[in-house]
């Protein structure tokens, strides 16, 4: 009995052996670090009825790891390289990079994705699907739109960071944290917005300030680059297609409506009664927007309530801040300014007829019966056109900064 058992045991060991050896010999999924082309950003264009995918691949040996530091590493080799390849589908284009690149493309660390206007006009569904489906594509990349050739943007070198993709990510994150002109849009947020009841989305634009592209490492040696990357306008998408642009100011108004303000700077006229001169700055630190749809017989009225508070940072006129009246006067001025922003923005949105305000979602949430009817009739576009907004803004100046009187009023004394 014992021997038999022993035999079985041996047999079992023998059976395990091939499994072990296949395990050891087969490294089906491993990719050595030195064989990876780590992409930090990608751009997609539609050219000659073909997809053109541009990838920005980090060159590790140039010391591109320093997000903040410019020093270290040999500066002669560029911190990243770009590949642009065309294909009938996006994946075909990606796969074709292997024709030119020595390294396997690895997109998990990609931070940004820039869509050319051509792509956005044609439709972005295919790209979103790719990002949701592909295992190593992250759906947390920030999405941008570039007028004209998107791939060009990726060539631009940045200062203070060598990894351009991460640099642009930092830019948009800081912008939406400190300035709130544009919402930062990540791929899954874009997908969420497009798949929501509104079916519309916005994407910030990225462009170059100058005409030339700084794509030589020697050029970044200058202190003031003649051409830099900058966030421009806000593209509006309806369905999957781009329908138009919102200017920076209109985009700012939209962030108020969609309650995406984290911190913002508002310039206003300190004495609105006497002069229209914009001579004060206010930093909005807290802001919340609530939107209530009200059915008024034949159309919806959106009750937009904005409450905010913040601190005064700059006053260019004579002003005594101990005086409650002058403060409320300034508050009023800021409120009017915001109202103006919202109205301006709303008019354009209405013109574009794209519900980037997310009103459809609000209506669905608060009035699901009527929403069902709208959905049945497929009449959202007309309903949207009839929507009237009633913005109420209430801004509170909480603190005045470190001085109680404006310098100008002291000077006058």
């Amino acid at each position: 009995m014992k021997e038999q058992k022993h035999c079985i045991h041996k047999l079992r060991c023998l059976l395990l052996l091939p499994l072990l050896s296949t395990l050891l010999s087969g490294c089906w999924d491993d990719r050595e670090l030195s064989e990876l082309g780590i992409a930090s950003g990608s751009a997609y264009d539609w050219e000659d009825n073909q997809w053109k995918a541009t990838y920005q691949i980090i060159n590790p040996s140039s010391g591109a790891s320093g997000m903040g530091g410019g020093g270290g590493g040999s500066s002669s080799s560029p911190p990243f390289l770009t590949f642009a390849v065309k294909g009938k589908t996006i994946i075909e284009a990606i796969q074709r990079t292997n024709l030119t690149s020595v390294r396997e493309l690895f997109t998990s660390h990609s931070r940004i994705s820039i869509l050319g206007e051509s792509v956005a006009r044609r439709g972005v569904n295919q790209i979103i699907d790719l990002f949701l489906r592909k295992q190593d594509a992250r759906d947390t990349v920030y999405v941008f739109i570039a007028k004209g050739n998107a791939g060009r943007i990726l060539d631009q070198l940045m200062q203070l960071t060598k990894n351009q993709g991460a640099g642009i990510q930092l830019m948009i994150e800081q912008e939406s944290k400190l300035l709130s002109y544009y919402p930062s849009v990540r791929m899954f947020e874009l997908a969420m917005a497009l798949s929501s009841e509104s079916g519309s989305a916005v994407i910030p634009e990225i462009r170059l300030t100058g005409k030339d592209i700084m794509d030589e490492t020697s050029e970044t040696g200058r202190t003031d680059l003649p051409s830099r990357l900058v966030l421009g306008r806000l593209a509006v998408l309806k369905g999957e297609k781009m329908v138009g642009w919102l200017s920076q100011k209109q985009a700012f108004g939209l962030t108020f409506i969609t309650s995406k303000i984290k911190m913002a700077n508002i310039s206003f006229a300190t004495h609105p009664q006497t002069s229209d001169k914009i001579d004060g700055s206010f930093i909005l630190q807290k802001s919340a927007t609530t939107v209530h749809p009200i059915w008024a017989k034949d159309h919806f009225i959106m009750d937009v309530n904005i409450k905010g508070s913040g601190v005064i940072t700059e006053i260019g006129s004579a002003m005594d801040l101990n005086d409650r009246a002058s403060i409320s006067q300034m508050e009023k001025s800021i409120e009017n300014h915001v109202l103006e922003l919202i109205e301006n923005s709303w008019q354009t949105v209405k013109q574009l007829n794209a519900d980037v305000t997310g009103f459809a979602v609000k209506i669905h949430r608060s009035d699901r019966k009527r929403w069902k009817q709208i959905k049945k009739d497929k009449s959202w576009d007309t309903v949207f056109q009839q929507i009237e907004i009633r913005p109420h803004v209430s801004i509170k100046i909480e603190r005045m900064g470190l001085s109680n009187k404006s310098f100008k009023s002291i000077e006058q004394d």
Partner: protein
Amino acid sequence: MKKKQQAERKKESDPEEKSIPAPLQLNASLEANLQEISKRIGQSSDVVFRRFTNESLSSLSLAFIYIDGLVNSEIINRNLLQPLMETFTLKSDSIATEAAFSMIKDQMLPVGGVKEGQTVESLLGLLFEGYTLILFDGIQRALAADTAGWEKRSINEPTSQGVIRGPKEGFTESMRTGTSMLRRRLKTSDLRIEEYKIGQRTQTGIALVYLNGLASESVLAEIRRRLNSINTDSILESNYIEEFIQDGGLTPFPTMQNTERPDAIAGGILEGQVGIIIDGTPFALLAPSTFFNFFQSSEDYYQRYDISSFLRLIRYSAFFVSMLLPALYIAVTTFHQEMLPTTLLISLAAQREGVPLPALAEALLMELTFDVLREAGVRMPRTIGPAISIVGALVLGQAAVQAGLVSAAMVIVVSFTAISNFVIPSLAIANSIRLIRFAMMLIAASLGLFGIMSSLIVLLIHMAGLRSFGVPYLSPMAPMTPRYLKDIFIRVPLWDMTTRPMTNLGKETRRQASNQKPKPQEDQQQQQNQQGGNSS
């Protein structure tokens, strides 16, 4: 089938049994006895035969046999030879041989232990323990007087387990010294010391030390049974015993603790464990032991509970680091690069640029190098130790990176792994994970984190199935007994440790009164008053 095998087994075991001869009774003739004994021992130079006749005892012929080096010659001279060789006048002139024997035994040997033996084997056994044999002509019995006294190492600080605070004495090679150290610590009549002699050729003394009433009877019975069933010719170190009696023959995990520290053994015994002290080695064993016992050091109880708890957590993390870090490094850098922060990934990639080996080979190379260095460090003569460590650290670490053979990150990973391994207080479990680490690295290189997780679940299941003398290896975590967790991941203050932490051991689970948290005098009084008020 069964019968056949039984027959075979008998055949196998028969010749061995024949080799052990039946005990031989002593002869009446002194001459014959001496011849027999010297035949048995052979011409060993250290055995001393001393014959003489005492006129006073009716010219009785006597012989002393002892082994030089095992005995204290001063005792022999003063307490054996002197009284027996002195001439004195007896009350009666002549005395029968039998009477002389009993007179010598009862009145003339000022020695503590005197035993009587009738067979050659039993006498030889005593002889090898340092007894001096006294053989008489005409009597079929012999006396053996305890004259043991050999050179011993004095009690020293334990070299393998040092402490900053705590007793600095360690066991020595003598079992007797060991038991005495325990007696000094546990002054209770409940302390039991059972002795065994194991090993046909070595006859090693083994002492089972436990507290009666605290140690579980079933565990004791199991240990006794396993000790008694050991059939071997030699026991030279405690590991012989450990391998023969521990559970799970094919497990990488130790199920018995070993320590040089008497206070650790005493602490274990006080928690219901059984200590096993083995003659010839300073390392004593403690059983049953759970996985978590290996992370407790006796120093935990000699310093404040907060820092002890912190150190416990450090040890557990060191355990995981030591087992998994190289494997995780391989898995993350070759499979799951997305897990790393981008900056780290890029700097790792920059380091690996130009390294010719794949990550697995790189890791294996470095790990093996470290193991070689470690082994060399143990064997090395002390004087050239520093030289080798410089070579090891500088040449193999720094130079290998500069030469582009390995990446700097890998050197960091391997050295951190190695250092972590030394954090674990028990060398036994630290050694077991050294091997597991290699298996982990291999599976991580072929299947990534999925492979690591798969092997972790195998390890977990294996450990959950292990038992140490009936105690589940992972208790009190699995099966979970929350009230015993006070001394596992953290160490609660001593006044809060009212129960013994070991599970299903012993009967007295309570070890001290509760509510011993130190409080100012007034509070105590107030509380007492309140209680008194309530009760009245």
